[in-house]
């Protein structure tokens, strides 16, 4: 017999199903993001097409999770941890779906860059930034699966790294663009791609906050360290 | 029986009907169904038989009583032509003088007048036998008729006066003419005279109103139940007045106020036991305490009522407690929760709701008291009393005691009257129960 079981066992089944759907969605979002980062480097056409096509699956699964959560709220009237569980699932599902959207956006922009055929891409660090963000996303989903608030907080703090990278990358691309007007189109796309990755990093912290809320009933109290200074960069 | 079961093994390998397909199981159940139906049918037949037996006995009882008693509703009367001597009983103004009338020898007048119809009867003994055809109270009967009429008619008038009880029995066919004269209460010569007046049409059966307007008498034809009914009614009034308030108060105390403990338990057990104490014991108690110690009047409905009240008390207490307990505790809680005192709770809410039950208990107790004979005999209510009682301390008798006295009398006519008195008693009971049902309907409230 499992520990902490509900008297109505179907309630447990519902919560477990919701949980596993969300984990699936997490895996799918991570895969999409991974592929989009890879394809940015390889510019592999088939992969790009696949990313764009698969995004619909994420939308579908998110809708499913919403449906399930709604049903649980209506039928089971969850309270306390169960209530938080369902609310967190709703919120995290939305975040993951948005992550998928960003991955698709990255793929779309990569396609444009690839067609432009401009070889002069100055973003050396963008792959590294993508890698770090992917790890954050991966770790926070692990923290969710194991209900590990400390691990989630760890991810939450790591976002500052991504912010630093993004600021650096932003300045780099801006410099390249001012040096060579030919790369302005590509550069603009790259800036957006970098921004997308930075947003996904923010999303990972959002999920981390949800995990903390799930475990402790409250979001982390101290404010998150932020280091994205791109909004203050005036010129080079 | 050993109800302890231990499940040795719950492995699924058990064969048998439990695991058999539905069709097999149903067939098995259907096979046993016939036996089960037969058993329940048998039980139903036993029940019907029991009820039929009970109803049968009741019918026999009622038929016997009615067939023995209904004839007492009529009384044989004999027509006698009498010339009442007005000057003997009226005053100067021609109005009947009660004192004169009372002192006048009416018996002689009636007998003399009756003998005139039989000029052939001359001897003293014979004349006396002839007179015995009439009631010993025929003179008194005539006097009442004359006084009721208010005036004394001039000349000879035919009056109907009561016959003796023996003639009454003969008239109603309850006397066998064929048995030996010595064993017969009506002798041969009296039979001849009787047949003569019957042939003349001077004998009739009239409604026996005396039975319902008079008290006891030595002569069956003058005896009535009114005295006993009034005696019973008076005793019951006392019973209700004493037993009902005492019992209700006792029940309310026991249910609501008595602190739980040995003393309360002791009282409870004793109240329940009192209900089973033979009634004669209460009679002895009444004799010793009310008559002996307090010196209360013998044979009085007051004492009878007190004794019956003691006897009825436990019945009403038990019924009242049961009906108090039947009032939902939610009502009690509601009143207490509003700040009503326990007494207010009991009086305002619990007792009104328990009233129908209390009423039923009371009626049952009273009905029991009404039929009670033994304790009344103990306190002297068995006396021979010819006047209808007018107060609670007058000597009186009660209906069941009257029945007991009459059924014990030698005269055949008293036996007949005892049966009629039983009918009166039953009627009394039924009307009381009807009242109870009606009152209950009126008071019963739904919640």
């Amino acid at each position, binding site marked *: 017999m499992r520990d902490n079981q509900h008297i109505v066992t179907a309630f447990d089944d519902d919560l477990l199903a919701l949980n596993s759907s969300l984990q699936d969605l997490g895996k799918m979002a991570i895969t999409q993001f991974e592929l989009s980062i890879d394809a940015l480097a390889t510019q592999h056409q088939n992969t790009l097409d696949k990313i764009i096509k698969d995004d619909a699956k994420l939308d579908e699964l998110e809708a499913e999770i919403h449906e399930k959560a709604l049903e649980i709220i209506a039928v089971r009237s969850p*309270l306390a941890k169960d209530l938080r569980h369902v609310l967190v699932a709703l919120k995290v599902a939305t975040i993951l779906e948005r992550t998928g959207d960003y991955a698709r956006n990255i793929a779309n922009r990569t396609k444009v860059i690839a067609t432009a055929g401009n070889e002069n891409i100055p973003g050396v660090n963008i792959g590294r930034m993508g890698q770090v963000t992917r790890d954050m996303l991966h770790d926070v989903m692990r923290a969710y699966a194991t209900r590990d608030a400390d691990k989630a907080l760890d991810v939450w703090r790591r976002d500052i790294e991504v912010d630093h990278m993004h600021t650096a990358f932003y300045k780099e691309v801006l410099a390249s663009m001012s040096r060579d007007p030919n790369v302005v189109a590509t550069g603009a796309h790259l800036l957006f791609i970098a921004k997308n990755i930075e947003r996904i990093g923010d999303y990972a912290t959002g999920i981390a906050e949800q995990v903390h809320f799930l475990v402790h009933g409250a979001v982390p109290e101290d404010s998150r360290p932020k280091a994205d200074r791109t909004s203050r960069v005036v010129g080079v | 029986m050993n109800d302890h079961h231990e499940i040795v093994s719950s492995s699924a390998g058990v064969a048998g009907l439990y695991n058999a397909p539905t069709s097999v199981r149903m067939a098995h159940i259907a096979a046993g169904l016939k036996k089960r139906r037969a058993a329940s049918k048998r039980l139903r037949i036993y029940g019907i038989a029991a009820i039929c037996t009970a109803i049968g006995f009741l019918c026999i009882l009622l038929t016997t009583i009615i067939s023995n008693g209904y004839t007492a509703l009529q009384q044989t009367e004999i027509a006698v032509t009498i010339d009442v001597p007005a000057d003997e009983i009226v005053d100067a103004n021609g109005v009947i003088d009660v004192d004169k009338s009372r002192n006048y020898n009416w018996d002689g007048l009636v007998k003399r007048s009756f003998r005139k119809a039989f000029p052939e009867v001359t001897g003293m003994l014979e004349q006396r036998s002839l007179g015995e055809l009439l009631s010993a109270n025929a003179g008194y009967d005539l006097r009442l008729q004359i006084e009721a009429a208010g005036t004394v008619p001039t000349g000879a008038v035919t009056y109907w006066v009561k016959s003796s009880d023996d003639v009454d029995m003969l008239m109603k066919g309850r006397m066998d003419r064929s048995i030996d004269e010595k064993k017969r209460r009506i002798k041969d010569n009296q039979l001849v005279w009787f047949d003569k007046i019957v042939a003349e049409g001077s004998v009739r059966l009239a409604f026996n109103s005396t039975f319902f307007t008079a008290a006891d008498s030595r002569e069956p034809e003058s005896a009535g139940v009114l005295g006993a009914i009034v005696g019973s009614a008076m005793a019951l009034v006392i019973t209700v007045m004493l037993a009902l308030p005492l019992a209700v108060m006792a029940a309310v105390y026991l249910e609501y106020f008595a602190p739980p403990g040995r003393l309360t338990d002791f009282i409870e057990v004793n109240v329940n036991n009192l209900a089973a104490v033979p009634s004669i014991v209460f009679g002895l108690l009444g004799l010793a305490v009310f008559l002996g110690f307090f010196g209360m009047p013998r044979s009085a409905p007051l004492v009878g009522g007190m004794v019956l009240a003691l006897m009825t008390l436990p019945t009403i207490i038990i019924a009242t407690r049961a009906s108090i307990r039947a009032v*939902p505790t939610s009502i009690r809680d509601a009143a207490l929760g509003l*700040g009503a005192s326990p007494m207010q709770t009991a009086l305002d809410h619990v007792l009104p709701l328990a009233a129908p039950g209390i009423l039923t208990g009371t009626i049952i107790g009273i009905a029991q008291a009404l039929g009670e004979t033994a304790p009344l005999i103990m306190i002297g209510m068995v006396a021979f009393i010819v006047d209808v009682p007018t107060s609670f301390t007058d000597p009186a008798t009660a209906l069941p005691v009257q029945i007991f006295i009459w059924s014990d009398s030698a005269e055949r006519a008293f036996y007949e009257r005892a049966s009629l008195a039983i009918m009166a008693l039953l009627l009394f009971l039924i009307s009381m129960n009807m009242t109870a049902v009606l009152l209950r309907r009126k008071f019963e409230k739904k*919640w």
Partner: protein
Amino acid sequence: MDTSVEMMSDSKLKAQKVNVFYAEKQALFDVSLGIDEKSVTSFIGPSGCGKSTFLRCFNRMNDVIPSCRVQGQILLDDVDLNSPKIDPVLLRARVGMVFQKPNPFPKTVYENVAYGPRIHGLAANRQEMDFIVEDSLKKAGLWKEVSDRLNDQATGLSGGQQQRLCIARAIAIGPDILLMDEPCSALDPIATSIIEELISDLQSRFTILIVTHSMQQAARVSQKTAYFHLGQLIEYGDTKGIFTRPQNEQTEAYISGKIG
């Protein structure tokens, strides 16, 4: 619990180390808590946890049960209710009670409401009584429905109406405090909602203590919630907190429907 002792200083009602025994069996163990004035406090917990017993301490309805003994202090405005100087009749005129099953007297609607004021002599004449009856029925949200049948039998009303009549009857004697022992357990959801709405209205006038089996109901109507288990007060605090992030695992298990 520390938190409850802290809150107690300015509470309307205070329970201090309350122990209740039924003969030899102890039903409540050292329960201490403070209840705010003009608020709704709900007591939840599994059957037999002592929450109703605790509620009945506040108007000494436990006195009715001969074997029941109450130890400890229950202070109403700093006066101990269990002191022999306090007359339970007087106390119950200050602490009204509404029971689990609607229990109107089998009398008219008017008589039901008028009974309390009558036994306490609160109305000098018929006009005053009429006013009390009307006002109480209005406060209980029943006036519109019964104003034209005040002389009908109360038992002819619907279940929800009967329960509101019982509330009107309780507030007709002008209590400070209203105790409600599972007031909606015999009612359908619509009638329940009406009563819950009524409780929210009454909160501005009365201090309300409610025992309920419905956790949603506790969550909806009360500001503070106390969770009892096996005669012990496990957790007491803001309702919002109890239902979103209970501090105690037993509370958590109970309110999320798990085997505790």
